C-alpha cells in the first residue's frame, strides 16, 4: 500500500516529522517497507537565474551561460548547457560542483566542455528524479525567490510504502492508515463528510441481483449510477502527480477517479461506458466456459464459481477483479455507469487465484471491503466525476444490501492484563476502541465494555481481538518484560532418540566425514533407483522437474553431491547426512537415517602412506561407528551378505540385530551410479537410527564391577582351509563359541586365496586370545581348548585345520 505524505495529511492533522510517522506506522503493525523522500536528496539544489546565454564558441548546440546564484557575495557562474530552452531571463534549478545528481548517482565536477570551463549544471526533471521529462531544463516561475533550496518551492511529496497484513483491509486506503495513527496519539483524524450528490433523473440502466441465493451470496449488493454528458479528459495535475507518486499510470479522468477512491478509502469502483452496454446489469455467477476480454487485454474463461457482471449481451466484467475491455471508458466516452459493489471475499480470492489476476480491486475484495462503503464510495466518486468531467448524475441504483456484520463484543480490561501483562483501566480501553471507530454501547459496574466494531474491521469478532487492538494501539513496547519462571536446576530434555542422533552425527564427523544437509526431494529417476518413486510421494507442484519426488533414500543426494565436488576439483569426498527419508505419503511414514558416502581414494597421495580406493569395509566401519555412538549393541550384530538392489550384489551387507535391520553398507551398484551420473566406486552406508533399541532403564548409573584377571592372557593362532563361500563371521562365531569362559577375543589376521590352494578354497587365519581368570593356563588346558576350537570351526564350516 503506497501513499504520499500530503495525501495522509488530508486525513490526519499532524506536525510530526516524516520519520516519526514512519516509525509509528511500523510500531502499529503497518510495516514501512520503503520511503521515497526527494526532499533530502534535492536539498542542495537551488533556484538560480540565467543572466546571459550565448552560443558556445566551438559547438552549435551548446550555450555558454552566465548564471546568478542569488547567494550573497557569490560571483556569477559560467555554465555550459545543452538544453534547447536555456536562455536569458529564466529561473532554473542549479546544481553546484560536489552535488550528487539523483538520476546518474554521479557527483558533479567542474568540467571543461569543448575547451570552456563549466562550473555547474542546470537540471531537467528527469535528472532530479522528478519524472520522465528530459526535453529541457526545468523553468521555474518568474517570481521564484533566488538562492533558496528547490525543496522550498517544488511540491516534493514523500511517498510511503507499507506492508499490510491480510487481516487489515481497512488500511488498504489512506483514511484507514490515518485512523490508526490518530488512535495511537500521532495527530488527529480530520472529520470526513461525504455529501450525497442529488440525482436528477432515473438511470436508464437498471440493476438486478442474480436469481439464486448463491448469486446473492457472491454479490450481496450492487450500487450503480448513470452519469450522462461527461467529457473524459485528463485528470487535474495534482491527481496525476499523486497517482504517479504511488506508481500508478494516470489514464483518464474517469479511470483515475476509481483509482483515487480505491487508494483513499479502500473502496474499489468500476466505470462502464454506458453506450457500450446492452440493456441492464446483473451481477451473477458466470456460466461455465463464458469468455471475457478484460481491461488488461487478455481473454479469460470463467467458471461457474466466478462472479460475472453481465448485461443482456453477456459478461462485461469479472466481478471484484477487473472490468471488461469492450465496455471500458475511452476519451470518447460521454455517458458512464459507475459501479460500486460488494463481493464475497473468498470467492474473489479463489477466482483471482485461478485466473492469476492481481488487481487493486481483487487485492481489496479478497481481504474484505467495508460492507457499508458501496454508497459513500459512489457519492465520493460522483462528486469527482462531475467536478472533473462535468455531466449530470442519475439517482442512485441500489440492488441488495450489505450482509449483516453487527455483533456486540464485550471487553473486560482484566483480559488485557491476563493475556498481555498490561494493566489498563476501562477509560483507556474505551478511548482506544472509540478512536479506532468502535462504538461503546455500554459499560457495566465492573468496567466491562460492550462494543460494536466498525464495519471496516472484519478482523474483529471476539474479545481477544479487542485485547489485541488495545495492546497494539497502547504499544507492545510498553508491555513489561518478564522472565519465564523455571526450575532452579535445569533437567535434561532430550529424548533417547535425539541423544542418539546427536551422538551419531558427531561420531561420523570425528571419523572424517563432513556433514551435509540436502533436499528432502530428489529427481524421480533417482528415487526409483533407490526403491522409491511411489506416486504418493510425487510432489504435485515441484519447484523444478529434478526435485519432484520425496526421497526414499539420502544416498542419491550424497552421491551426486560428491560428484559435484569432484567436478569442482575436490575429489575423495566423504559426506554424511542425518535426516528423514520417506516410505509412504502419510504423515509419519518417514524414518530418521544417518547415511554417508565415501568416494575416490582413502586419502591424498602421500610420501609415506599410499592411498587406496575406498571400499565396502570403509562403509562398514562408518556404519559401525555410528551404531556404536547411537548405543547399539554392536557386539551382538550379525553381518549378512545381502542388501537392496542399489548396492553392488557382491560387495554389500546388512547389519542386523536378530531380524531387525540396523544398517546397510557397501559399494553402490555401478548401474545405479550410471543413473545418477556419478563416477564410482562409491562406498555408502545407511544407519536406521530409530531401529536401534532404547537402552533399558536402570535404577542407578553404576557400572558393573571391573573384573580384571591377574593371569597372563595367551594367544594361539589357527589357519583353517574352508570353502570360499564360508563367511569369516562364521569362523569367528564358531571359535568364540568353543569356550565362552576362556576365549576373550577372536581376530582374523590373514585371509588367503590363490594358487597354493585348491580352487574354491580360502585359508582364514584366526588369532584366539585366551584369558584365564582362576589360574595360569597349563599346556594341557591350552591343548584342550585348542581341540575344542578346531572341532567347533570344522563343524561349523566343513573346513579343516591347515597343517
Amino acid at each position, binding site marked *: 500500500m503506497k501513499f504520499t505524505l500530503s495525501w495522509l495529511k488530508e486525513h490526519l492533522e499532524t506536525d510530526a516529522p516524516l520519520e516519526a510517522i514512519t516509525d509509528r506506522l511500523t510500531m502499529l503493525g503497518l510495516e514501512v517497507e520503503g520511503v521515497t523522500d526527494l526532499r533530502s536528496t534535492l536539498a542542495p539544489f537551488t533556484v538560480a537565474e540565467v543572466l546571459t546565454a550565448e552560443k558556445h564558441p566551438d559547438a552549435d548546440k551548446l550555450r555558454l551561460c552566465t548564471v546568478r546564484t542569488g547567494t550573497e557575495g557569490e560571483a556569477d557562474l559560467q555554465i555550459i548547457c545543452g538544453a534547447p530552452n536555456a536562455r536569458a531571463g529564466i529561473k532554473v534549478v542549479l546544481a553546484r560542483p560536489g552535488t550528487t545528481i539523483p538520476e546518474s548517482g554521479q557527483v558533479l565536477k567542474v568540467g571543461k566542455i569543448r575547451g570552456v570551463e563549466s562550473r555547474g549544471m542546470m537540471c531537467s526533471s528527469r535528472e532530479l528524479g522528478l519524472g520522465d521529462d528530459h526535453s529541457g531544463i526545468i523553468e521555474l516561475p518568474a517570481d521564484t525567490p533566488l538562492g533558496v533550496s528547490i525543496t522550498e518551492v517544488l511540491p516534493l511529496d514523500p511517498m510511503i510504502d507499507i506492508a499490510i497484513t491480510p487481516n487489515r483491509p481497512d488500511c488498504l486506503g489512506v483514511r484507514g492508515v490515518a485512523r490508526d495513527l490518530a488512535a495511537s496519539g500521532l495527530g488527529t483524524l480530520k472529520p470526513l463528510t461525504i455529501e450525497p450528490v442529488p440525482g436528477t433523473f432515473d438511470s436508464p440502466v437498471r440493476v438486478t441481483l442474480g436469481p439464486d441465493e448463491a448469486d446473492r451470496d457472491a454479490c450481496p449488493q450492487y450500487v450503480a449510477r448513470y452519469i450522462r454528458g461527461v467529457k473524459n479528459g485528463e485528470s487535474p495535475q495534482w491527481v496525476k502527480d499523486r497517482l504517479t507518486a504511488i506508481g500508478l499510470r494516470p489514464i483518464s479522468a474517469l479511470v483515475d477517479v476509481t483509482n483515487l477512491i480505491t487508494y483513499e478509502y479502500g473502496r474499489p469502483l468500476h466505470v462502464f461506458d454506458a453506450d457500450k452496454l446492452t440493456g441492464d446489469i446483473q451481477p451473477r455467477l458466470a456460466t461455465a466456459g463464458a469468455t471475457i476480454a478484460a481491461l488488461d487485454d487478455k481473454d479469460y474463461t470463467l467458471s461457474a464459481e466466478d462472479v460475472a457482471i453481465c448485461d443482456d449481451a453477456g459478461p462485461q466484467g469479472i466481478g471484484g477483479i477487473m472490468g471488461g475491455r469492450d465496455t471500458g471508458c475511452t476519451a470518447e466516452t460521454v455517458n458512464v455507469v459507475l459501479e460500486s459493489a460488494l463481493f464475497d471475499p473468498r470467492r474473489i480470492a479463489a477466482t483471482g487465484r485461478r485466473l492469476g489476476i492481481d488487481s487493486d480491486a481483487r487485492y481489496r475484495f479478497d481481504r474484505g471491503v467495508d460492507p457499508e462503503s458501496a454508497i459513500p464510495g459512489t457519492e465520493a466518486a460522483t462528486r469527482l466525476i462531475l467536478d472533473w468531467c462535468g455531466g449530470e448524475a442519475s439517482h442512485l441504483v441500489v440492488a441488495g444490501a450489505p450482509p449483516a456484520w453487527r455483533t456486540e463484543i464485550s471487553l473486560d480490561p482484566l483480559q488485557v492484563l*491476563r493475556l498481555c501483562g498490561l494493566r489498563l483501566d476501562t477509560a483507556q480501553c474505551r478511548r482506544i476502541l472509540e478512536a479506532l471507530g468502535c462504538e461503546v454501547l455500554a459499560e457495566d459496574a465492573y468496567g466491562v465494555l460492550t462494543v460494536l466494531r466498525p464495519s471496516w474491521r472484519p478482523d474483529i469478532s471476539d474479545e481477544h481481538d479487542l485485547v489485541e487492538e488495545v495492546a497494539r494501539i497502547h504499544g507492545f513496547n510498553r508491555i513489561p518484560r518478564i522472565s519465564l519462571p523455571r526450575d532452579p536446576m535445569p533437567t535434561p530434555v*532430550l529424548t533417547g532418540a535425539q541423544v542418539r542422533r546427536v551422538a551419531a552425527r*558427531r561420531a561420523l*564427523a570425528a571419523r572424517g566425514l563432513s556433514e*551435509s544437509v540436502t533436499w*528432502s526431494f530428489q529427481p524421480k529417476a533417482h528415487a526409483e533407483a533407490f526403491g522409491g518413486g511411489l506416486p504418493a510421494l510425487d510432489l504435485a507442484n*515441484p519447484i523444478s522437474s529434478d526435485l519432484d519426488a520425496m526421497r526414499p533414500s539420502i544416498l542419491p543426494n550424497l552421491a551426486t553431491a560428491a560428484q559435484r565436488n569432484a567436478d569442482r576439483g575436490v575429489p575423495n569426498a566423504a559426506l554424511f547426512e542425518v535426516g528423514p527419508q520417506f516410505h509412504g505419503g502419510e504423515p509419519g511414514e518417514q524414518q530418521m537415517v544417518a547415511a554417508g558416502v565415501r568416494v575416490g581414494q582413502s586419502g591424498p597421495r602421500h610420501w609415506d602412506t599410499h592411498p587406496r580406493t575406498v571400499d565396502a569395509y570403509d562403509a562398514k566401519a562408518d556404519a559401525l561407528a555410528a551404531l556404536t555412538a547411537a548405543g547399539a549393541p554392536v557386539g551382538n550384530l550379525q553381518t549378512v551378505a545381502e542388501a537392496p538392489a542399489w548396492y553392488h550384489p557382491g560387495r554389500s551387507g546388512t547389519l542386523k540385530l536378530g531380524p531387525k535391520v540396523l544398517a546397510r553398507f557397501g559399494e553402490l551398484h555401478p548401474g545405479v551410479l550410471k543413473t545418477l551420473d556419478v563416477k564410482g566406486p562409491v562406498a555408502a552406508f545407511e544407519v536406521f537410527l530409530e531401529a536401534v533399541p532404547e537402552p533399558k532403564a536402570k535404577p542407578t548409573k553404576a557400572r558393573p564391577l571391573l573384573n580384571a584377571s591377574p593371569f597372563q592372557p595367551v594367544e594361539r593362532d589357527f589357519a583353517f582351509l574352508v570353502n570360499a563361500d564360508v563367511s569369516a563371521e562364521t569362523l569367528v562365531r564358531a571359535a568364540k563359541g568353543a569356550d565362552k569362559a576362556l576365549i576373550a577375543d577372536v581376530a582374523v589376521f590373514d585371509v588367503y586365496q590363490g594358487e597354493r590352494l585348491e580352487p574354491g578354497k580360502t585359508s582364514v587365519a584366526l588369532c584366539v586370545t585366551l584369558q584365564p581368570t582362576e589360574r595360569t593356563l597349563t599346556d594341557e588346558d591350552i591343548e584342550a581348548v585348542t581341540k575344542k576350537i578346531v572341532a567347533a570351526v570344522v563343524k561349523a564350516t566343513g573346513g579343516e585345520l591347515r597343517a
Partner: protein
Amino acid sequence: MEDLETLRAELMSAVEAASDPAALEEVRVSALGKKGRVTALMKALGGMDPEQRKAFGQEMNRVKAAVAEAIDQRRAALEAAALDARLERERIDVTLPVRPESTGSIHPISQTWDEVVAIFAQMGFAIAEGPDIEDDFHNFTALNFPPDHPAREMHDTFFLPERADGTRHVLRTHTSPVQIRTLLGQKPPVRVLAPGRTYRSDSDMTHTPMFHQFEGLVIDQSTHMGHLKGCLQEFVEAYFEVDNVPMRFRPSFFPFTEPSAEVDIGCSRKGGELRIGAGDDWLEILGCGMVHPNVLRACGLDPAEYQGFAFGMGLERIAMLKYGIPDLRTFFESDLRWLRHYGFGALDVPTLHGGLGR
C-alpha cells in the same frame, strides 16, 4: 714394583687404544681374565713372604681396580659413541608432512540446533518433533487458517498428489503443526521447542524450497506476552552472546496467534560489518504471539482456562547472522569447501557453561 707400574701403564694405554667393544673385551681378558697378566701376577703372590705379599698385594689390587675402572669408563664411552653414531644414522627429515588424517565437520544447521536447544533446555523447554508430510488439519485448519483465507496464500505450499478421499497432504510449511500434535497429546503445562525441516515452493536469492525453523510453545494458565518478551530477550542475548540487545516487537498478523508480533533486533552495519547489538538499524528475526483461542479450542483446551505464547524462527537465518554466512542457498549445496569453512569440529559441542560459539 717397577714392573707393576709398567704393567699398569701398558694396560691403561691398551684400554685407551681399544677402538670398539670387542677390542676392549680383548684387553680385559688379556689383563683380568683367567690367564691375564694381572691374574698371573696375583698367582705369583703365593711365593712371597708375608710382608712382601701384603705390600705387593695391596699394590696389585690398586692396579687391578684402576684397570677395571678404566675398562668400564672406556666401555661406557665407546657405547655412547656407538649410540651417537647410530642416532646420527637414524636422522629423519622432520619437516616432511605427517600422515594424512581426514577431519570431518558438523553442518552449521546442526551446530545451531545444538546451541538453540542448549538455551531453551535451560528454560525448561522439551524438544518435540513432527512429520515433514502433514495433513491439511495440522498444517492449516487447526492453526486457524480458514479454507480459502488469503493467509494460506502467504505460504507457498508444496502439495502431494490427491488421495482417495480427495484431500491432499502438504509438506509442512512451518513447524507450527507440531504445536497441534503436542497439545493434542499432552495436557498443559507445556513448554516445547520444535525444530525441523520446513518447505515452501519458493526459490531465489533469499529463499530455498527447504529450510529449517524452530517453534517454541508455552501453554499454561498464566503465561502472557510479557513472558514472551522476556523469554525471547534472554534467548537472543544468550544465542548471539551479546548483552542488552535492543529488541522491537512490531504488531503483525499470523492466523494462529493473537496478538501477533514480528521481532526485530538492533544491529549496526558500520563498515559493511554486521554486528548484533546497539546500533542504528533493525533486523527481523522471528514471528511470535499469544496462541489464538481457536488453536487452543482445536486442541480441546478451553481458552478461558489456558493461554500461552508461540514463536517461530528460521534456523539458517540466525546461523547466517551469528556466523556471517552470506548466502542461504549455500547451506544446501554440499560444497566441501563451504562445509569445511563454515562447519564446526566434531568435538565443538556447544554448552552454556563452556560458551556456545566457536
